[in-house]
């Protein structure tokens, strides 16, 4: 029974806690902690002439005020550039508190610590910062052409420039191929800014133990191990003296993989200095102007194709707006440029991007991380080819698909992990067949005509994608079975709602043959597991899932060996069922794992009755061998790591039917269908939930969410009143179907699922609106007002 756990829709083990108010999120910790708040720049670009804190000193409950001048040593240096890249020739990062100059609205300038957050904000309001205003650089095209510089030593505001080119089979470059192609098209596409926007903002709580000279930091992060290393380095503390724990995290979606945020080093520093617990809980307005955004790109496309719609050559030039700093490097535009070919065999491909500084909030990955833009580009291109040739849009896609017998398929590009981009497996024709059936593609023209007779406009759209998931370098898992028979699993990466406590427990229970209830899982706690990368890029299930499976296999092997001794049997004849090791076919010759755990640890001192069996006078051990044999360790535990040769590649295809109001230009999604392939499923209920949530965010990105900066660099919609995340009333029901082509790259045959839902949505909705309206849709998101404007322009 237990072995069937893998692949079952097991109810989540996190839920009872989260449903009864017993979750522990960052702000729920440290009830007696002092509160930090920040004075943030109200200007997009300015020099700091003076900071006058005198008026704030009278605030009752004020504890401390810090500016850049107060920061010691390495804390006074710029924050790390996390992912260097040779093409990032002009990477720049911010200081934890602004030094002399601010480069976006929201940049932290002064940190205030007070008895509570109300008082800290009172003090912030009384601090006067004297700014000398500089001309702000806003908008990626403006920035690329502006004489005004975001960083004086970065000419042209260009942080990075990268070209990748894959020649055609006969060795010709994309430009040459396009020139000689039977058909060519050239156009421009725009994607606007959005953001992860988890409902819990960021937050940090730090506790300094002066007696022990140790620091414990809680952070609402997607990577506790890496925050730990950054904090230790910045504060000059020995690594073993720093612990970082990610408590329950109220959503991440990418913004919390960025680290160390200024607050993640400043709050622990203040806690050490003050000898008091200090906590900072980001509020919503701070989140809008100081946490990261994503998505904004301008793309220039040239494509050459034949009469069958086959893409012979594709050239894409991308202007990527990375905001004021590049702490996360150029991962986002790298992903856009390398995932752009999707499920297609492109004859010859040239992609070039420039990553540009602007006086806006920095850009780091948001769920999908550059892929929604890539898919928007590729899929809009497919639709344009179909329109140009008068072909069915699915036929053009089918004509370009990589075929099932072509895997592994090398796209000839270098991916975000610095490794060749080689697709492991997939079945795109089958995926398309399933999608067409699910949405009723072939019958749609009839429905459309019928609707038209009633004066209604409906349209159908499609989008296909391939998503590199499970990127390295590695994750680890540790599994320990204690003498009470409980199984303790830990892994270093963190959780933000993905249900890791459940799916990882399913893996462990299945591998070890123990009841699920006996397994507990801890994630994101450096006290339990110190080596990890983090939760991003749809990698947790692939990376930690496989690492935990491998660790379980070690433990299982050890358990069988010890049990074999105890049962005087051959380990190869043993099985584990419901936590009991027994000889296959003879259930009475058995020993519980709890006992095996006791026996695994030779004892001098008994701590309970069960433990007596392992003590030195209990007998049973051979005098010829040491109690712990060479190459062995005491205890029934195991640790292993999973480090893949390269990424796995999940894929999927979405289709939607939308209705546009002929008069009001309102856009309504009538149906939304998803065919998804992430290899083997650990827990289909959880995977389904990930898809639903991803699609909802995609709908936000397609129809509602945009960060609107004015020419002064002011974010005009820094609230939930005006940054329009969809409610239940805006999100369609998602119909799903699963295809499972297991990955050959890992023991469990799984690929990631976390980001899939969001990736093609803008492309799909654009495709459907275009079909309904007959007007080319070349920028997202699109509002009714935008559609109205397009109609006016077209008529």
């Amino acid at each position, binding site marked *: 029974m237990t072995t069937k756990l893998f692949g079952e829709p097991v109810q989540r083990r996190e839920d009872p806690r989260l449903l009864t108010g017993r979750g522990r999120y960052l702000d729920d910790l440290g009830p007696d902690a002092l509160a930090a708040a920040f004075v943030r720049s109200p200007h997009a670009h300015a020099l700091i002439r003076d900071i006058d804190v005198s008026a704030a000193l009278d605030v009752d409950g004020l504890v401390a005020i810090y500016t850049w001048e107060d920061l010691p040593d390495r804390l006074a240096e710029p924050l790390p550039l996390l992912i260097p890249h040779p093409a990032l020739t002009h990477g720049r990062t911010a200081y934890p508190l602004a030094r002399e100059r601010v480069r976006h609205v929201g940049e932290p300038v002064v940190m205030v610590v007070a008895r509570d957050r109300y008082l800290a904000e009172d003090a912030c309001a009384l601090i006067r910062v004297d700014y000398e205003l500089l001309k702000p650089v806003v908008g990626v095209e403006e920035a690329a052409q502006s004489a005004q510089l975001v960083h004086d030593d970065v000419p042209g505001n260009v942080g990075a420039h990268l070209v990748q080119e894959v020649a055609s089979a006969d060795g010709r470059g994309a430009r040459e191929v396009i020139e000689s192609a039977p058909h060519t098209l050239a156009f421009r596409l725009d994607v606007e800014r959005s953001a992860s926007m988890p409902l819990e903002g960021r937050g940090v709580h730090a506790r300094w133990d002066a007696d022990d000279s140790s620091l414990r930091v809680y952070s609402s992060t997607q990577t506790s191990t890496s925050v730990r290393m950054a904090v230790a380095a910045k504060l000059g503390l020995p690594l073993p003296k720093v612990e970082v724990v990610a408590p329950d995290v109220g959503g991440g979606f990418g913004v919390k993989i960025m680290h160390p945020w200024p607050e993640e080093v400043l709050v622990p520093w203040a806690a050490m200095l003050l000898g008091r617990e200090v906590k900072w809980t980001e509020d919503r307005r701070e989140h809008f102007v100081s946490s990261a955004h994503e998505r904004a790109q301008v793309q220039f496309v040239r494509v050459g194709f034949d009469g069958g719609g086959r893409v012979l050559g594709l050239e894409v030039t991308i202007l990527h707006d990375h905001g004021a700093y590049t702490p996360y490097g150029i991962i986002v535009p790298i992903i856009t440029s390398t995932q752009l070919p999707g499920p297609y065999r492109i004859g010859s491909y040239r992609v070039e991007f420039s990553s540009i500084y602007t006086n806006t909030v920095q850009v780091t990955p948001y769920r999908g991380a550059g892929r929604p833009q890539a898919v928007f580009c590729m899929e809009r291109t497919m639709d344009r080819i179909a329109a140009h040739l008068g072909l069915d849009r699915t036929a053009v896609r089918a004509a370009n698909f990589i075929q099932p017998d072509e895997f592994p398929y090398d796209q000839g590009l270098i991916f975000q992990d610095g490794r060749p981009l080689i697709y492991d497996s997939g079945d795109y024709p089958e995926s398309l067949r399933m999608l067409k059936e699910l949405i009723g593609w072939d019958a749609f023209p009839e429905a459309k005509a019928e609707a038209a007779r009633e004066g209604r406009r409906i349209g159908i759209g499609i989008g296909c994608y391939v998503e590199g998931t499970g990127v390295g370098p590695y994750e680890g898992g540790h599994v320990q079975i204690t003498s009470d028979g409980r199984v303790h699993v830990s892994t270093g990466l963190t959780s933000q709602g993905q249900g890791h406590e459940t799916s990882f427990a399913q893996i462990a229970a299945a591998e070890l043959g123990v009841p699920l209830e006996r397994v507990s899982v801890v994630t994101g706690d450096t006290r339990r597991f110190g080596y990890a990368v983090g939760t991003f890029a749809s990698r947790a299930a692939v990376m930690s899932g496989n690492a935990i499976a491998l660790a379980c296999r070690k433990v299982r092997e050890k358990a069988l060996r010890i049990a074999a001794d105890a049962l005087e049997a051959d380990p190869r004849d043993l099985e584990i069922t419901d936590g009991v090791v027994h000889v296959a076919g003879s259930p009475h010759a058995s020993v519980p794992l709890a006992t095996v755990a006791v026996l695994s640890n030779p004892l001098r001192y008994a701590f309970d009755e069960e433990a007596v069996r392992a003590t030195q006078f209990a007998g049973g051990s051979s005098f010829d061998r040491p109690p712990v044999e060479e190459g062995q360790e005491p205890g029934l535990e195991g640790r292993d790591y999973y480090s893949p040769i390269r990424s796995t590649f999940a894929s999927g295809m979405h289709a939607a039917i939308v209705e546009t109001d002929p008069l009001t230009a309102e856009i309504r999604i009538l149906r939304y269908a998803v065919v998804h392939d992430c290899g083997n499923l650990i827990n289909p209920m959880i995977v389904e939930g990930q898809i639903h949530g991803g699609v909802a965010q995609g709908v936000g990105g397609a129809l509602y969410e945009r960060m609107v900066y004015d020419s002064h660099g002011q974010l005009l919609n820094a609230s939930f*009143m005006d940054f329009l995340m969809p409610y239940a009333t805006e999100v369609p029901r998602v119909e799903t179907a699963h295809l499972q082509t297991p990955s050959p790259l890992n023991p469990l045959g799984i690929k990631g699922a976390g980001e899939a839902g969001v990736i093609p949505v803008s492309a799909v909705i654009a495709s459907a609106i275009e079909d309904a309206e007959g007007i080319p849709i070349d920028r997202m998101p699109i509002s009714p007002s935008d559609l109205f404007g397009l109609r006016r322009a077209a008529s």
Partner: protein
Amino acid sequence: MPEQAHEITLVVNGTLRRAEVPGRRLLSDCLRHDLGLTGTHVGCEHGVCGCCTVLLDGEPVRSCLTFAVTVDGREITTVEGLADGERMSPVQRAFAECHGLQCGFCTPGFLCTVTALLRENPAPTEEEVLEGISGNLCRCTGYQNIVKAVHRAAEIMAEES
């Protein structure tokens, strides 16, 4: 100069609680930080996200748009008060059964809202469910399983009544 404090009494989840709060203390902060009931979450502090929704004399309200002093003497139910002892309420159980939560941050607000919704309308239609939860944001689930959970909770309540 220290702020003037007001002594207030609230009946929270059936228990009489006293607190000393300044006039500006939001009910959300009072519950979380003065009374230690951190199950009520704060997601926007401008009344849009619904994470902080609690029941005031049985009616769902935004605790971030309510001053604690204003509701002196009134009854408050938070997520911590929805279960019957160790047994989760039908709404809580339905959310677990239907995978109606992921990160769980918005969940307490949904649970309070839905509890009141079903008390008033034990068998809501699809439209009534959507309207009922239309003031609560969730960034994880896409709402589909939340809607399913509301219907399922109605079913459980009907079965158990």
